[in-house]
């Protein structure tokens, strides 16, 4: 296999590796290289977190608003579900590129694409969660003299919260994975550390970059799960 040769030619790493142990030259798994080079992953990690946090918060706000509107205007449910599902079918690498002529290279394009992908998951769960609130409870709320707005925010939304947060949880973990491809749109993130052939065959790099993306997804999943338990203590959130 010609792996070591290719690695030796790989631009950025060459300087760091000159005179280093044969482990790196042989493309082994090198803990010492990882320790020495951890700082190169710090900025991509922060960028990755930024992309995910911005996209998911934005996506959650939009999807929640759309869900609340669709809950009032039931006829909107079918077209909005269709639209968000159609977006979800577009493969993410293609989506990042198709947006390039519209919004240019950079984080903006990545955030638009990632935000669009969160819609289908969160929107459906909002609509479904609200629809699942027992009619008796809604009637009782109306009977006690609540206005439609009070009913929505004091009764329906809290009762739908477990399902809404379940949607948020899936959206967050999914977005971490998708953001790994944001380098195609010229945005940053950990995916940039896996974006060339020479980077992707270098074991130590793959372990750190791939490992960080996976860890980030798991961490965010647990974080939303914690939020879920905190906000809806009456539901025993199962670690699904």
């Amino acid at each position, binding site marked *: *296999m010609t*792996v070591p040769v290719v690695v030796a030619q790989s631009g950025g790493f060459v300087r760091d590796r000159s005179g280093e142990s044969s482990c790196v030259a042989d493309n082994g798994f090198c803990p010492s290289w990882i320790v020495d080079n951890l700082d190169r992953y710090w900025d991509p990690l922060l960028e990755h977190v930024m992309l995910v946090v911005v996209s998911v918060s934005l996506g959650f706000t939009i999807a929640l608003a759309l869900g609340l509107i669709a809950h009032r205007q039931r006829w909107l*449910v*079918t077209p909005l*579900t269709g639209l968000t599902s159609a977006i*979800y*079918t*577009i*493969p*993410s*690498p*293609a*989506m990042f*590129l*198709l947006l*390039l*002529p*519209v919004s240019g290279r950079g984080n903006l394009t990545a955030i638009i694409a990632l935000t669009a*992908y969160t819609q*289908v*998951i969160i929107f*459906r*769960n909002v*609509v*479904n969660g609200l*629809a699942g609130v027992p009619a008796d409870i809604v009637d009782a709320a109306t009977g006690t003299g609540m206005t439609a707005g009070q009913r929505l925010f004091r009764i329906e939304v809290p009762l739908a919260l477990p*399902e809404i947060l*379940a*949607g948020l*949880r*899936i959206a967050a*973990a*999914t977005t*971490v*994975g*998708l953001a*790994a*491809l944001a380098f*195609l749109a010229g945005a940053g993130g950990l*995916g940039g550390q*896996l*974006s*060339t*052939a020479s980077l*992707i*065959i*270098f*074991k130590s*790099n*793959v*372990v750190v*970059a*791939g*490992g960080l*993306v*996976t860890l980030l*997804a*798991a961490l965010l*999943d647990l974080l939303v799960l914690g939020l879920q338990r905190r906000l809806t203590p009456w539901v025993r959130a199962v670690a*699904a």
Partner: protein
Amino acid sequence: MSVIASAIGDAIRFIFEARESRAGTVEVGGLGEIGHLAGNHFLVSFVAVLVAIVVAMPLSLWLGHIGKGQFLAGSVANIGRAVPSLAIIAFFVAFLGSGFTNVCFALILLAIPPILTNTYVGVRQVDRELVDAARGQGMSETQIVRRIELPLALPTIFGGIRLAAVAVLATAIIAPLAGYETLGTPIISFNVYGTAGQLGAAIVVAVLTLAADGGFAAVQRIVTPKGLKVARGGRGSSRVWPISSRRVQIP
């Protein structure tokens, strides 16, 4: 607006007519090259999905039949969702090497979770009374799986294959990083193919994926047993299903 239109126009021209590469040394684009890359793209995706079906379906049909392995089906789905596809490819390439076989392996790994989970769920949601009735008529366990559970689970199973196919076609874009040329080549080798190549290839991938999605949706409708269609139509067919963690695949 005209900038966008001309960029897309140029990208579409790239698909049909060859041109000089950005450095001016080789001819790129045109139906010949795009066709070749699309063929490779389709081949690796097809093989991956096929192998995933052969591996995952019998296992989860059987697990679903005996009603065991819920934990397995659930965790496979969750791991499939949590580990980003780029990371899977990277791990495979770094530790096993590049080329068709390794790319294919990585894609198989990506295709197994939705097929496994959907088959399992499809079988489990078959009415247990139907299975008992079949058993009462003297059907053997194999007959029950083949004649009762499989047909009734078929729409859900094809839903899983559909998710797998879409995910695999999308992820095969990263294959050139692993030394196998697909439609991802113009996307990743930006320096050679330029903006038009990148965008043109992205358009072809999007069309290919949407076609696969539509095709499998049609198959899904065709394989739905008549009885199931009637039952569903009666119960308000426009119900929106919630996204539960087990049915989601990353685009």
